[in-house]
């Protein structure tokens, strides 16, 4: 991939050296990973157990000819189309606390990108006490209210979203707002790696 020429050599080096974990390759994870690779992050560990299905195409970074493929493999293929030299470690696994700690042990930052609340809580509870930097997202359903989406730092946790709106009846997981949250997660990761303000 052609590097972003607006970055300094040292900024580029920091981004290229980092490894970022992505827990979940759905609407948040697939789009966040895309942004990170375009931003210059070259080492990702992506974990998911699911396959691409029709209902994912309205918001996730997959394509119709990838239906039925493992999400981690499909996402890896798509990311390598952006940066053929990227090191994408694909892990086909349903994470629990122990495997999360092990899988993300060498990651500088982990992006929580699950859709189920209990899984989100599990990941944060598994990793936060060790001081691992985590970027979590909640409150991204529906339409509009872009200004309600915020980034909050809580110790080693960065929390993205409005923290209120759950996906459910009357609050669809729609591409624009899920995409905003995913981009905010990626933006936070890049800022943290570069030592900039969130």
């Amino acid at each position, binding site marked *: 991939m052609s590097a972003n020429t607006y970055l300094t050599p040292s900024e580029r080096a920091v981004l290229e050296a980092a490894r970022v974990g992505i827990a979940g390759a759905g*609407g948040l994870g697939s789009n966040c990973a895309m942004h990170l690779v375009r931003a210059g992050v070259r080492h990702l560990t992506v974990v998911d157990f699911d396959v691409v299905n029709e209902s994912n195409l309205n918001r996730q970074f997959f394509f119709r000819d990838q239906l039925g493929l493992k999400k981690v493999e499909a996402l890896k293929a798509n990311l390598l189309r952006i940066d053929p030299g990227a090191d994408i470690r694909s892990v086909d696994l349903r994470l629990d606390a122990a495997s999360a700690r092990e899988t993300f042990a060498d990651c500088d930052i982990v992006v929580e990108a699950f859709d189920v609340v209990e899984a989100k809580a599990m990941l944060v509870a598994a990793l936060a*006490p060790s001081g691992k930097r985590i970027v979590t*997202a909640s409150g991204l359903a529906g339409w509009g209210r872009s200004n309600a989406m915020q980034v909050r730092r809580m110790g080693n*946790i960065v929390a993205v979203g409005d923290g209120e709106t759950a996906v459910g009846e009357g609050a669809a997981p729609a591409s624009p707002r899920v995409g905003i949250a995913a981009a905010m997660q990626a933006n936070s990761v890049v800022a943290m790696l570069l030592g900039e303000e969130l």
Partner: protein
Amino acid sequence: MNIVYQGEAVETTTKTVAEFLSARGVNPAKAIVEYGGEVYAPGSDLQALILAEGAALDVFKLTAGG
């Protein structure tokens, strides 16, 4: 007693962080809580955290979607 909850002054008669959150329907198993400069991961035991006058309490609720 008055505390600062989510950046706003709030009056409460509850004694602990756990009681305060319960009264507001916040489930600590599905929330990140910051109180007294400490961050508590989802599922942390908040029963022992006594509310103090003027203390700041912040919560980020985990919700479905991703």
